[in-house]
């Protein structure tokens, strides 16, 4: 077996050093009823070649996003990632190290985390960012739990523009912690209904921009209304590239901002692993979840970095911890940080503008199709359209033309009564030919 260095002779000698006759003697504490006599009923070991064949066959049964016209977004975005990013994250010293518990021999990871936190803070426009969460949706849920701790209130209001998976995740995690979750009705302009839902028991309101329908909103007024009621504002962003062009959540008054960072540095991966970005105001720092990397000095006064403020965390505070998170998304955060360093602020701005331009071009093409109605007036790289038929049906039909036309809203929220609504996303990877193929297939399908 190629991963097992011990030879039979090694094993025999080692057993002799231990002073037992057989490896079974090391398992004596296992109750006899539970000792399996032989291997379980699964295939035996396999060569690299055989494994490549088996998994290659499964991979071959999937329609690769980049192999043809592709317009899916809704929380996961296809962007081009520079080749050097994937090369660097496969460096042994990054790939095969653990959480940096021993800072003297983990400065590589720690410095990256410090740079990552600085980049995230700048993007989200808030002074403090943590070292990553699992993904945007769990970061959103953690923000709600944090707001409840800070305000000592038990109610949260989720805008109807929040990604339904984020709403569902937040509901599961907050509900079990005894927090009442109010999800407002899904609508393209759902933000308009948020202020009226804030009351004296509200711990926080959660607003997404661009929202799940792609609509961009100024949340400043919501921030003011929340603050006036003693509540916090949590702003969610599922498309991190949009931060290169839009006002940051902090600038608009967010107390906590969370985002899905997948768009920068990370592939689609069928939904995971991704990387949750989490930032907040200085005042809220001690209630933040997750790991934090901080600057300090070593015994000779040289600058170095350590994990810090860990008295918030599970390994110290146990049931009183701010979160149960331990393993986070370190390597995805590294990929994010490398890609962000390559882009720089200037490159991110260009990338964002390019996304916005391609999406407008796509919108213009679809707007010309009879029966297609554009629903999102102002968007970044994603918008909603109304079709004359259930969107799920149309998407399935277009897949047979090898066009992945977008995400039917009913897939995210079947109960919303928005079955005819399709979410369409374009990025810098979208070509003029892709747009033409979509337009052609959609026109034909609708006319049929």
């Amino acid at each position, binding site marked *: 077996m190629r991963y097992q260095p011990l030879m039979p002779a*090694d094993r025999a000698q*080692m057993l002799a050093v*231990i002073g037992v006759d057989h490896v079974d003697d*090391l398992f004596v504490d*296992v109750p006899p009823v*539970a000792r399996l006599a032989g291997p*379980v009923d*699964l295939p*035996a070991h*396999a060569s*690299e070649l055989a494994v490549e064949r088996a*998994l290659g066959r499964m991979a071959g*049964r999937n329609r690769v*996003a980049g*192999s043809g016209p592709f317009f899916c977004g809704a929380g996961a975005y*296809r962007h081009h990632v*520079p080749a050097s990013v994937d090369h*660097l994250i496969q460096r042994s*010293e990054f*790939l*095969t190290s653990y*959480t940096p*518990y021993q800072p*003297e*021999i*983990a400065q590589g990871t720690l*410095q*990256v985390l410090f740079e990552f936190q*600085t980049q995230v803070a*700048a993007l989200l426009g808030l002074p403090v960012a943590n070292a990553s969460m699992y*993904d945007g*949706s769990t970061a959103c849920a953690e923000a709600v739990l944090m707001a409840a701790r800070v305000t000592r209130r038990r109610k949260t209001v989720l805008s109807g523009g929040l990604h339904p*998976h984020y709403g569902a*995740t937040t509901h*599961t995690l907050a509900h*079990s*912690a*005894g927090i009442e979750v109010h999800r407002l009705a899904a609508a393209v302009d759902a933000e308009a209904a948020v202020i009226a839902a804030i009351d004296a028991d509200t711990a926080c309101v959660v607003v997404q921009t661009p929202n799940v329908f792609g609509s961009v909103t100024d949340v400043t007024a919501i921030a003011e209304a929340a603050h006036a009621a003693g509540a916090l504002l949590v702003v969610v962003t599922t498309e991190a590239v949009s931060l290169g062009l839009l*006002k940051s959540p*902090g600038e608009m008054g967010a107390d906590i901002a969370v985002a899905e960072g997948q768009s920068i540095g990370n592939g*689609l991966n*069928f*939904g*995971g692993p991704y990387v949750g970005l989490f930032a907040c105001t200085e005042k809220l720092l001690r209630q933040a979840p997750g*790991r934090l990397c*901080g600057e300090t000095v070593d015994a*000779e006064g040289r600058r*170095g970095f350590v994990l810090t*403020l860990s008295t918030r965390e599970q*390994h110290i505070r*146990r049931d*009183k911890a701010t979160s149960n998170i331990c393993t986070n998304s370190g390597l*995805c955060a590294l990929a994010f940080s490398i890609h962000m360093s390559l*882009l720089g*602020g200037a*490159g991110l701005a*260009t990338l964002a*503008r390019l996304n916005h331009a391609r999406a407008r071009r796509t919108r213009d093409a679809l707007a010309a199709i009879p029966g297609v109605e554009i629903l999102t007036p102002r968007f970044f790289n994603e918008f909603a359209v109304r079709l004359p038929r259930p969107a799920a049906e149309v998407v399935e039909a277009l*897949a047979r033309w090898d066009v*992945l036309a977008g995400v039917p809203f009913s897939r995210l929220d079947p109960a919303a009564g928005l079955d005819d609504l399709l979410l369409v996303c374009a990025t810098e990877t979208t070509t003029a030919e892709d747009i033409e193929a979509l337009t052609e297939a959609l026109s034909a399908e609708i006319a049929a």
Partner: protein
Amino acid sequence: MSPVNVGRPTRPLDSVDASVPAPRARGLQQEEPLIFDRGGWGKSGVDFETGGEDLSAPDLAGLERAGPVELPGLSEPEALRHYVRLSQKNHAIDLALYPLGSCTMKHNPRLGEKMARLPGFIDIHPLQPQSTVQGALEVMDTLAHWLKTLTGLPAVALSPKAGAQGELCGLLAIRGAHEARGDARSTVLVPTSAHGTNPASAAQAGYQLREIAQTADGRVDLTDLAARLGPDVAAVMVTNPNTCGLFERDVVEIARLTHEAGAYFYCDGANFNAIVGRVRPADLGVDAMHINLHKTFSTPHGGGGPGAGPVVLSAALAPYAPTPWLVHDEAGLRLEEHSRGEAAASQGRICAFHGQMGMYVRALSYMFSHGSDGLRQVAEDAVLNANYIKARLSGVMSAAFPDGPCMHEALFDDAWLEGTEVTTLDFAKAMIDEGFHPMTMYFPLVVHGAMLIEPTETESRRELDRFCDALLRLAAAVRAGDVERFRQAPVHAPLRRLDETLAARRPRLRWTAPAA
């Protein structure tokens, strides 16, 4: 509220602050400043295909930011240098044995990396029509089959993002099962030796915590357990093999007592590596157990994550598994993404989309490679290696539980350091100078000055001996009274010991431009 920008430096970057020690390069160890210290404001290392697009006039109703985010950029050669230099300041499994107890730092097969990067896995969208991702669903279905077969439990929720989320998910299933019976319960019992995520997850699931005492031989105290069980107890949460590296001999009795009290038996399966292929947790009476794919099934830790924490569930708990559910129907495999139909009683979502696909592929690649025979050998060699270390070091260091074999990790306390003025921390730091990553220190909390050594099965006899020899030499230095060597350690690492108190007292969590 004003925008928070990193801000460009107001002081010329080449002006030297004399109070800061000069950076040092040692041979191949290069000094590397922060990207923010290097300049690069306005620079970008990415070229775009902007042909034909007008990028000047966004249609955003005044919501665009005033200017680009103030972050520096690196050209590709600068980026390569920056990150390669940083990488060389890290210890890694690929460099040497990494004996972090409870973390299962085994070799990460590169085949998994290659497979996860196949376009058919890395470049597929979670919300593509399901007819276009049948291969991805086959990966999930096959992984589920292996996990169920290896544990003997009938159901598995794949989506938890890491071990801690698996714990939470398992406890929410337990809550669902009790509540469906109208029997809301308030408490979870956890041994004092448990990993911190266990009590934290129980609290997050809305339960109160009660601790269970431990016997002198490092196991759950059955008498104490029996006394604490009652109609308010929803679950007993026990790690097996436990965090002392010992198999809970009375596990079947623990399960029986738990069930008799109407509670469920949650097993923390972080240490499944010790028994995989040799013991099925279902045969021990376990109702729910998470499996850290980033431990037992060797998806790389990546400096802190990502991981994946699928949780296997008994038939009684399965109805409360989170969405999505993977179901077989006439069209093939299908994900039920909502709490309806067969998933009507589901606890709901615990994350967006379908969990950690990239980790599923790596874990499945590992499983296919090892097979049922190889996995059994994994457990045997992991346990053999740990016992070998325990045997070689026990003459000099004090094993916390000297009697009988350990499982996959060997636990020592600091009794052998008494009177030497060397602490567990000092000893661990001295290991760094010998080229090894320290073991897990001061965990579990039940053992004074704990040193938890987990070698894993992927270490050769030669590397194990090299490691034991180094520790024995260090122990001899302790006995010889060379205290200063330990207090000063490490001296050969990229940095000396770091001031953690300063970091916490005056938190600096991001770079800010130096004042003029």
